[in-house]
C-alpha cells in the first residue's frame, strides 16, 4: 500500500472511528488523535502493523477486537478490485458464470479445491488468503451486468460452490500420510484432536472469504453502509432471540469474566450501602475524648445480609438462549447471594438448581433440563399461566421476604390464560420481583404476548443482550 494523501487518510480514519462508534465502542476525539499519531509513526508500509497500532490506540477491551478487525478491513482494504496476486496470474475464467448442473464436471472448482486442501493441510495463511481472493473472484459474483445496486459479491454463493467442509477427510488423510501415521496404531493422542483443528482452519478460511466478499461489496456500496450492516456485533450486544449456535457459544465464554465484573460492581454498591447515617449517641460519646468537640463522627453501620435469589426461567425453544445464558451467569455469581434457586418451566415448573450445579458441559444444559426436569405437561408449548400457577402452588416456600425473584421469558403465552393472580401471589411474598423480557417493548402488545398483563403486576424490563443484562443485574438487584 502506498501512502495516500493526508486528507484521504484523515477521512478514512474518522470514517473508521464513526463506524466503530456505531457498534457501541466508545472512542473519543483524543483516541482518534492518538490513532493519527500512530499512523504517522508507523507509516503505511505494513498493513498488519497498522492494524495492531490502530487497535492499540482505539480499543479498550478484548471483546471489541472482532468488530474492529472487520471494520478495519473495510476502511483500510488490502487493495482495490481484483486482488493483485490474482491479477498477476489470472486463473482461467469460467466461460459459464452459472454453476454446472449436478454431476457435470467442474474443472475450475476442482482445481481450487485441490489447492485449498494443500494450503489448509500446510496451514499456509498467505496461500489461503490468496485463494480466498480467487474464490470470490471466480464464484462470488452475482447480478453482473445488471443495474448498479443490484449486483455484488456473495460469500455464501462462493462457499456454497466450493464447499470447503467436504475437504476434511481428504486433508486428514494427506496429513497422516505425511507424518507416516496412515496406520492407526502409529498415531499418538494428538491425532484425536487433528480433525477439530482442521475444522478450525476451514472455519478461518470461511471467515477469510466473507471478509474478501465484504471488501468487494464495500467498493460498490461504500464502507460506511457495509460496516453498519455486515459486521457482526460484539458478543455482549448479540441479540438473545436471534443468536445462532456459534454466537451462543461465544456468549457462554463471556459468562465467567462477566460474572466477575458484575460481582465487583455489586460489591462496590454493597460497600456504599453499608455507609449509614450518623449515629448521634456514639458520636457524642466519642466527643468526650476530644473535650466535647465531635471531631470524629460515628456512623451507624448497616450490615445488610446478602439477598436470596430465585430465578424463574422459560426454557422453551424460542427463548432458550436467553434463559440458558442467564442461568449460567447467575450460577457463576452465586457467591454474591446467600442462596440461589433456579426453576425452569415450559408449561410446568421444576427446580433445576442441582442440574445447574453439577452440570459439566454448559453447552448441553438446555437439552439436559428438557430431558431430566419435568418442565412439560401433555404438550410442548409455553404456558406461562399454568407454569406460574404451578410455582405458586408447589414452590412458594422458596420465596420469602428477603428473596428477589427474576422471571425470564418473552411472555408469549400461546393465547392461554395468563393467570396474573399467580404472579401477584409471588410478588406479595417476595422482596422484589422483576421480569426480564428479551423482546423489545414495541413487540409487547403484539400477537400472543401477555407481556402487558404481567407488566401491570411486576416491573418488566426489556433485556435484549448480555450488555443490558449486566446493567440490569447490577442496578436492580438489592444488595
Amino acid at each position: 500500500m502506498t501512502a495516500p494523501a493526508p486528507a484521504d487518510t484523515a477521512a478514512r480514519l474518522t470514517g473508521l472511528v464513526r463506524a466503530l462508534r456505531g457498534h457501541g465502542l466508545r472512542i473519543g476525539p483524543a483516541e482518534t488523535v492518538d490513532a493519527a499519531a500512530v499512523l504517522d509513526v508507523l507509516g503505511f508500509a505494513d498493513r498488519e502493523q497498522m492494524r495492531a497500532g490502530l487497535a492499540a490506540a482505539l480499543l479498550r477491551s478484548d471483546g471489541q477486537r472482532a468488530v474492529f478487525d472487520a471494520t478495519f478491513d473495510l476502511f483500510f482494504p488490502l487493495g482495490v478490485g481484483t486482488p493483485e496476486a490474482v491479477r498477476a496470474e489470472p486463473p482461467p475464467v469460467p466461460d459459464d458464470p452459472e454453476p454446472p448442473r449436478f454431476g457435470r464436471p467442474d474443472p475450475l472448482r476442482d482445481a481450487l479445491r485441490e489447492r485449498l486442501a494443500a494450503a489448509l493441510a500446510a496451514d499456509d495463511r498467505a496461500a489461503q488468503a490468496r485463494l480466498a481472493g480467487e474464490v470470490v473472484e471466480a464464484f462470488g459474483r452475482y447480478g453482473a451486468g445488471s443495474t448498479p445496486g443490484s449486483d455484488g459479491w456473495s460469500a455464501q454463493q462462493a462457499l456454497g460452490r466450493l464447499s470447503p467442509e467436504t475437504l476434511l477427510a481428504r486433508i486428514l488423510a494427506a496429513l497422516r500420510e505425511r507424518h507416516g501415521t496412515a496406520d492407526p496404531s502409529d498415531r499418538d493422542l494428538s491425532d484425536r484432536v487433528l480433525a477439530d483443528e482442521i475444522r478450525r482452519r476451514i472455519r478461518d478460511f470461511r471467515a477469510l472469504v466473507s471478509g474478501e466478499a465484504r471488501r468487494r461489496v464495500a467498493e460498490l456500496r461504500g464502507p460506511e453502509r457495509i460496516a453498519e450492516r455486515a459486521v457482526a456485533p460484539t458478543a455482549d450486544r448479540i441479540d438473545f432471540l436471534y443468536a445462532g449456535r456459534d454466537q451462543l457459544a461465544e456468549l457462554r465464554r463471556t459468562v465467567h469474566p462477566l460474572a466477575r465484573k458484575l460481582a465487583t460492581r455489586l460489591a462496590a454498591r454493597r460497600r456504599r450501602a453499608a455507609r449509614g447515617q450518623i449515629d448521634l449517641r456514639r458520636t457524642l460519646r466519642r466527643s468526650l475524648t476530644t473535650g466535647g468537640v465531635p471531631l470524629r463522627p460515628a456512623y451507624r453501620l448497616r450490615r445488610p445480609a446478602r439477598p436470596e435469589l430465585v430465578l424463574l426461567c422459560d426454557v422453551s425453544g424460542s427463548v432458550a438462549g436467553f434463559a440458558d445464558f442467564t442461568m449460567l451467569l447467575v450460577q457463576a455469581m452465586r457467591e454474591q447471594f446467600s442462596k440461589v434457586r433456579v426453576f425452569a418451566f415450559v408449561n410446568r415448573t421444576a427446580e433445576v438448581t442441582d442440574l445447574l450445579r453439577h452440570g459439566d458441559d454448559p453447552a448441553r444444559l438446555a437439552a439436559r433440563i428438557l430431558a431430566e426436569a419435568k418442565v412439560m405437561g401433555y404438550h410442548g408449548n409455553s404456558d406461562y399461566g399454568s407454569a406460574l400457577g404451578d410455582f405458586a402452588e408447589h414452590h412458594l416456600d422458596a420465596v420469602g421476604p428477603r428473596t428477589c425473584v427474576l422471571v425470564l421469558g418473552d411472555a408469549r403465552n400461546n393465547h392461554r390464560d395468563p393467570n396474573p393472580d399467580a404472579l401477584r401471589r409471588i410478588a406479595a411474598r417476595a422482596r422484589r420481583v422483576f421480569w426480564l423480557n428479551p423482546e423489545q417493548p414495541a413487540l409487547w402488545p403484539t400477537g400472543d404476548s401477555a407481556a402487558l398483563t404481567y407488566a401491570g403486576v411486576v416491573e418488566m424490563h426489556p433485556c435484549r443482550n448480555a450488555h443490558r443484562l449486566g446493567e440490569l443485574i447490577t442496578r436492580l438487584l438489592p444488595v
Partner: protein
Amino acid sequence: MTSGSNGNGDGTGFFTSVADAAERLAATGYLASTAVATTVFLADRLGKPLLVEGPAGVGKTELAKALAEIGRARLVRLQCYEGIDEARALYEWNHAKQLLRITAGRDQGWEEARTDIFGEEFLLTRPLLTAIRGEEPTVLLIDEMDKADVEVEALLLEVLSDFQVTVPELGTITATRRPLVLLTSNATRELSEALRRRCLFLHLDYPDAELERRIVRLKVPGLDDTLAESVVRIVGALRAMELRKAPSVAETIDWARTLLALGADTLDDTVVRDTLGVILKHQDDVRKAAQKLTLG
C-alpha cells in the same frame, strides 16, 4: 495528548522500528507477535503507558522484564493488591525520623523545624515516585492493576498522563526522563475509562500454533520436534473446549518440561492421563478433557 511525529521529545527511545523491537525482544528470549512488537514500539515512541490485558500466564509480566533487559533499564515494580494505598504506591513521610528530628532540635523555633522535617531527607519514595525521579532509563511495571481498588486508579492518573507527582509540602516533581510504563491486568474487574484512555491497549492472547511451537522449542530445547507439535496441538484443542481455566503458555511449557523429564517420546493415553494435572488446574476440567479426548 502527544505528538508522535518527531519522537524525540516524549518517547523513551528504546527502539528504532517495529522490526527492531521484534528482533531485540527475541534476543532476550521473548518471542513476540506482530501485534506485541508494534504496540511496544508505539508505547516507546509515543511515550504513552501500555495497558496489557490477557489471561494469566501468557507472559504479561515477562514482557516488562524483557523490555527492561533490552533498554538496560531499571525495572521498578509496583505489585497491586486489595487495599494498596498512596503510602505504598507513591510516597510516605518517615514519621519516626521526623519525630527524632523534632526531639533532637528542641530549642529550635517552629518555623525552622517545619521547613526542615518536610524535606527530601524525610521522604520515603515508593515505586511510582522512584520511577519518576530516576535519572537512568526506567521501566515501570504496575502489575495486576485490577487487584487494586478504584481509588488507586485516580492516584495513577497524574503519573500516567503527565509523568509527575505532586507532594503538597514539596511541590510538583516532574520526570526528568520518562519511564516506559506497563500496566497489566487479568480483567477481573473493569478499569475505569479515565485510566484506559490514557493508555495504549494490548490484549495479549494465547499465541497461534506456529508461535507457540517456537516458544516451546526455545524454552524446552531438549524436546523432540514432533512431540512439541503434538503438545501444542493438544493444548490448542483444550483451549477450544469450554473449560473453567484454559491452559496458557506457562502451562504448555510446564507440560513440555514434564514430558521431557518423564522421557516420554510419544503422547499416548497413559502419559497424557498421568500428566493432565500439569496443564489443567481444576478437577472438573481434567474430567471433562479426559472425556473429550476419550482417554481410556
